[in-house]
């Protein structure tokens, strides 16, 4: 009785060997199939990123840094700041993806990120971006951004002029457009703002 039971149990390896079960992964020759929801390397849609740095703020390991990148949308992302991720510290928790207000950051199925040096696994927006504008599109958008900034500045100037006309009591209101002009001066529309400034002065 004892022997029969034991022999039955020793039959297990044979039974398992008969079944075709994949036990060893053939990586890197064959990549295992990853699900749609896989949290792998981030994918950045540079055309929609607004550079709000929400991802950088929510990151528990503070591995996201906002850096300059050329091929984004200057209309939405005035300072052209995009996330750069240090995968040496990233733990793929996905909080940055959840936090993104415009859903431009996703996590994809790509998982290979090995490098020889520590700086090799700090991935710039150039590596992360799956969607981006070409240089020509960026130039067009920059022109558009300049135009919009100029329009804004003109509108502000007109408002200021109107406020000046209304009388000296509105000194507080007059200060506001000046501030807006200063804020615009920081962005890529610097020239536009600079061009608008003399106009503003002239109108006033």
């Amino acid at each position, binding site marked *: 009785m004892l022997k029969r039971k034991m022999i039955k149990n*020793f039959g297990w390896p044979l039974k398992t060997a008969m079944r075709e079960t994949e036990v060893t992964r053939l990586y890197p020759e064959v990549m295992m199939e990853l699900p749609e929801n896989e949290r792998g390397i981030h994918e950045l849609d540079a055309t929609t990123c607004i550079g709000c740095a929400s991802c950088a703020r929510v990151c528990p390991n503070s591995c996201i840094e906002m850096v300059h990148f050329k091929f984004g949308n200057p209309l939405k992302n005035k300072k052209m700041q995009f996330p750069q991720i240090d995968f040496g510290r990233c733990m793929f928790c*996905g909080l940055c993806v959840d936090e993104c207000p415009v859903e431009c950051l996703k996590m994809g199925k790509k998982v290979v990120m090995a490098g020889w040096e520590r700086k090799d696994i700090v991935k710039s927006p150039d590596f992360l971006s799956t969607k981006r504008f070409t240089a020509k599109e960026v130039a067009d958008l920059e022109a558009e951004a300049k135009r919009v900034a100029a329009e804004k500045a003109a509108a502000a100037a007109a408002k200021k002029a109107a406020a000046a006309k209304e009388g000296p009591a509105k000194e507080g209101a007059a200060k506001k457009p000046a501030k807006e002009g200063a804020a615009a001066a920081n962005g890529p529309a610097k020239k536009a703002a600079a061009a608008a400034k003399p106009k503003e002065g002239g109108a006033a």
Partner: protein
Amino acid sequence: MTNASEVLSSIQSAFPGAVLDSRVESDRRLWATIDSKKILDVCKHLTTKLNFDHYSGSAGVDWIARKEMEVVEIMASHGAHQVVAMLKVKTPRENPSVKSLTGLYWNANWYEREIWEMFGINFEGHPELYPLLLSDELMGAWPWRKDYKGYPDLTTGERAVKISTPEGYTEYHIPPTPAEVEAGTVVTVRLKYPTLREREEKEIKSDSEMIMHLGPQHAMVPGPFLLDVLVEGERVHKAFLDLGYIHKGIEKIMENRSWLQGITYTDRMCYVASLSNNECYCGAIEKILGLEVPLRAQYIRVILEELSRIQSHLIGTGEFLTLIAGVGYAPWQYMIIDRENIISLIESVTGARLTHTFVRFGGVRNDLPAGFADQCKKVLPYMKSRTEEFIELFAQDPIYHKRMDGVGIIRPDDAKRMGVSGPPLRAAGVAYDMRKEDPILVYPELDFKVVTGTKGDSADRIDVRLREMLESIHIIEQCLDRIPEGPIKTEVKVPKKVPAGEAYYRVEDPRGEMGMYVISDGGDKPYRVKVRGPFYATFQTLTPLLEGTYIADAVAIAGSMDGCPSEADR
């Protein structure tokens, strides 16, 4: 059935003036501030008159603004009723001292030692106030106090000074810089207490006895801890445990992270049970916020937690078998192959294999993907048949039973007294399961039974785990049939700042009762998070269990507990 307000009135009538402040949160939660002089009497009254036979742990809180410290004793019952009494004892911040409960509850020992080393609260009458988690260098720094300045920077090897010990070993010592001494990040006055080694050597009574190290690096459990056994021949006379080798200070880190970021740290306490840790933390905060979780999200959580329980039990059982040398075959690999199916199922929802960070305040991160139910319907019947085969395999193997029967027996009353939880407790025959005792999510609507054993030995613990897997499969099947359509996150916007309040939330971890005590002071970070881990409680019982056994059984007993030192150390 007793409820919280009855308990409160009973204490108030028995000890007039002992309750300084109280709050009945619900039928199951009682918060009371007890006069520190009467805490022992109140606890005795609770245990003898009101069936509070489960001392579930204690937490220290440093209220620096109020210039006082608090020790919160968590009291519950093993099935007589479902009230959890949170009894607070206050003590001034200068020279804090409270009465020790070790005389009443055996398992209060470790909880109080932890509070002592972290907060510097003295426990009057505690038999062995020695460090548990911290290293000797940090003793006296009281790192979990709110005014702690931070750890000294010991990351640079250049500062290390070489010392040759009299035994001929080379040790490295990192002397503090004057700046660190001035900032108060290093301890300058050392506390006096016998080291672990001195305590061990004191127990050696004769020449035939010796001390044997099992660990910190040992195949016994996945994680480092030191188990020293005092042996005479093959017999273990006494066992000593030293943990803290992977103490990460997660509770303190969480105080410095935002509420949302805290979820990622709960994953890393125990990676095979990360979903129930997520659930515990998020559930506590949902309780403070008063958030309602949509029904679909509740079902998703239950499905994933049960899947996680299956994979945890598979790894626990499989690893145990490698420890007792496989008994002629190696089922460990079969269990790992099967576990891969479950892990793939979880990964298809959460996107990560082990550290899921999946549960959110008032919902979950992702919805179930298309085809998840079909995939489950393929995997679960297979898992069911496999588990039944495993149970049969274990039940009929004569070698296994000769090896395991009667090894490491815990009797039901001992198990209750020692505060064991989870499968080791249920194997002893005590049907104590948080899913029934403190039901959360949709568990009350689901049909499942609490699996119990009869003998309480190592074989029984494994058997309970395997049969629990069948129950989990049954739960998931029900959930898949009933899961409704709908949102997966609450529509209420979760605020960045959680209003001031406190909550204690319990879930049934694969290893037992997991509780989190979360305090908010209205800020964007937790004021205090206390994790009452299941393995911490089970771990403590290892030393008395090992006394009188053989050395070979020490591994079998410790392995059958399905240990996770990472969660015990936090």
